[in-house]
């Protein structure tokens, strides 16, 4: 700094500004390669998923002409002949391209039972001459299956033909759009329940990790350096051990003939093995075990930094240990507690592997149903919608905890 603080030479100011820009650019350049990589490898995929949850061009690409012809349809009756003929010729083309199955799948989602109607119609139109379809397409279609006369069928086709649609989000909160455009509850109520169940399980797991983790961290924080470091090994070793290994261990412990059952039977507590594995109980206990280090580590880090003399002073002045802990230590350890709780809760809400392996039917969480729609039912758009909701939930939780707990800390500190 060459000039007096109250007066800045314009040339120097320019130089300084240039220097700042240069340094900012320099710092930024270090980050650029990773930024490009993360945008390609991570951000773009997440964006694609968000897009996919509202975008499904399959039907629109398969039968564009039929959909265009349907634009003028009143929706009350069977569409007129031009629509039917157009659709009959589309069906013939699809039967020969082997794409009729894709249409069948999509319409079936909107109206169960349509799959066989589409497929059998495609089969019967496959070998018909084009001129014959142009002349008698409508009657051929109605002959192949009388459900083509039903307006509901065409509503299903039209709604499946929307390129952009909110229907997957509606489904993922157990709603549907009726033919008249109103929104109503679906017959099957499943996903909202599952979200609630997932949150409930994550909450139980978080509470359990606090109940188990807090005393341990408290004890370690008060122990001598040597003992604390020694005990830390027993927290870190599970932490570093493969997730699959720990899940395997719980299967070995909890299965019908497993270690827990045989021990209990050997000492005569029970005479029939308990059903422990493949239940909500096994999911919760295995996940508590797996996530416990995520609670202990931040708690310990914070507690270690708390001056023990406050507690000693309070106790020496006659406070009961619990009272002293509640009034002095607990508030000071809250940052660690909230960090741990936040971490455990967020991780458990999106957990997949452990529920998939030990959860059986009761222990399934929202991630498992997303995987189910990705891998079993092939309803990728619904999986994307459910995943997007989960993502929003996670980000919301993250923000909420950051705001609430963070704000509280300032007041207490």
């Amino acid at each position, binding site marked *: 700094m060459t000039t007096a603080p109250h007066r800045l030479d314009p040339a120097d100011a320019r130089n300084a500004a240039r220097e700042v820009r240069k340094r900012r650019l*320099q710092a930024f350049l270090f980050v650029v390669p990773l930024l490009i*990589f993360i945008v390609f*490898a991570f951000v773009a*995929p997440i964006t694609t*998923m968000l897009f996919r949850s509202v975008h499904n061009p399959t039907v629109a690409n398969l039968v564009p002409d039929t959909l265009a012809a349907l634009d003028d349809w009143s929706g009350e009756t069977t569409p007129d002949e031009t629509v039917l003929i157009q659709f009959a010729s589309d069906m013939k083309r699809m039967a020969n391209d082997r794409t009729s199955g894709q249409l069948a799948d999509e319409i079936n989602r909107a109206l169960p039972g349509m799959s066989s109607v589409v497929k059998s119609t495609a089969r019967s139109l496959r070998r018909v001459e084009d001129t014959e379809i142009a002349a008698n397409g409508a009657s051929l279609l109605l002959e192949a299956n009388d459900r083509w006369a039903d307006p509901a069928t065409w509503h299903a086709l039209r709604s499946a033909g929307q390129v952009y649609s909110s229907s997957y989000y509606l489904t993922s909160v157990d709603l549907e759009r009726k033919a008249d455009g109103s929104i109503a509850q679906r017959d099957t109520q499943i996903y909202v329940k599952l979200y609630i169940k997932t949150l409930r399980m994550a909450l139980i797991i978080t509470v359990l990790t606090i109940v188990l983790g807090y005393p*341990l961290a408290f004890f370690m924080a008060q122990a001598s350096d040597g003992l604390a470091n020694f005990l830390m090994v027993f927290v870190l070793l599970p932490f570093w051990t493969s997730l699959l290994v720990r899940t395997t261990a719980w299967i070995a412990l909890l299965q019908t003939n497993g270690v827990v059952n045989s021990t209990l039977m050997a000492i005569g507590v029970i005479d029939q093995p308990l059903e422990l594995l493949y239940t909500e109980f096994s999911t919760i206990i295995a996940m508590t075990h797996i996530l416990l280090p995520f609670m202990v580590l931040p708690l310990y880090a914070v507690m270690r930094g708390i001056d023990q003399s406050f507690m000693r002073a309070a*106790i020496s002045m006659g406070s009961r240990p619990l009272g002293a802990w509640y009034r002095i230590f607990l508030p000071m350890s809250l940052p660690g507690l909230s960090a741990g709780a936040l971490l455990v809760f967020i991780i458990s809400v999106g957990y997949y592997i452990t529920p998939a392996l030990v959860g059986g039917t009761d222990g399934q969480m929202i991630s498992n149903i997303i995987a189910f729609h990705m891998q079993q039912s092939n309803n990728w758009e619904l*999986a994307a919608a459910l995943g997007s909701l989960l993502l929003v939930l*996670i980000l919301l939780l993250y923000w909420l905890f950051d705001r609430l707990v963070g704000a509280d800390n300032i007041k207490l500190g």
Partner: protein
Amino acid sequence: MKRFPEYYSFWHYSGHYALRVVAFLVLVFLMLPILVIMPLSFNSEPFFTFTEGMLSLDPDAYSLRWYQEILDDQKWQLAIRNSFAVGIAAALIATTLGTLAAVGLSSPWMPYKRLITALLLSPMIVPLIIIAAGMFFFYTRFNLVGTFTGLIIAHAALGVPFVIITVTATLSGFDRSLFSAGLSLGAQPVKVFWDIVIPLIRPGVIAGGLFAFVTSFDEVVLVLFLAGPEQRTIPRQMFSGLREQINPTILAVATLLVVLSATLLFTLEALRRRSARLSGSA
């Protein structure tokens, strides 16, 4: 016997011992499942349970057959090779890019620091199932699904946050004036980076790399969605084993993995101490 202050009452004593007992029980809860699988992996029977013979320490009840089975099984061989190859490659990418970025992020001049840090750390917070679904949709367009390249990129992205966290932590104890001094003496930034910065933050870089490696080595959800049969890894092989035919080969693999993680843990601990020493002297 520990001596207590004179003002301790009955409540203080009992509280003190109760805490010890609880802490001990929690540690047992943490360690027992991992310890239980080790002897089970030497079971000579194809079960997941302790047999009578094992409990009476009959040497015939123990065998190495499940370890032999790992060596004989072509699929486990493939899985082991793949896990190391993918893990090392992913860790290299994550460490290289992550270290560079951490240097930039810990500069006081870094623009949009909060936002960019949040973005780069987000692979740690977003549930794996969401990442897996998104990557499946997106990587499909580039024919990356079912290839080693795709899997390595995916795993590298997961490892990045760990590298950033460890390296940034090391850098916070690093005197930036050394960097400026190097620059002001006329050296190229790249040269300053290699000759001054890297040697000082090396423990943090290696720790980050190990974290990234373990993240990939232990990861199974992305493998389930993105990998084909030829990219099968150890966790993937364990996953299908646990879902289908449960046999003690999985326990033998699990035991080996525990030994491996113990080794990694002690390596990291050594690194941490070294790092503490270095920053203490800096």
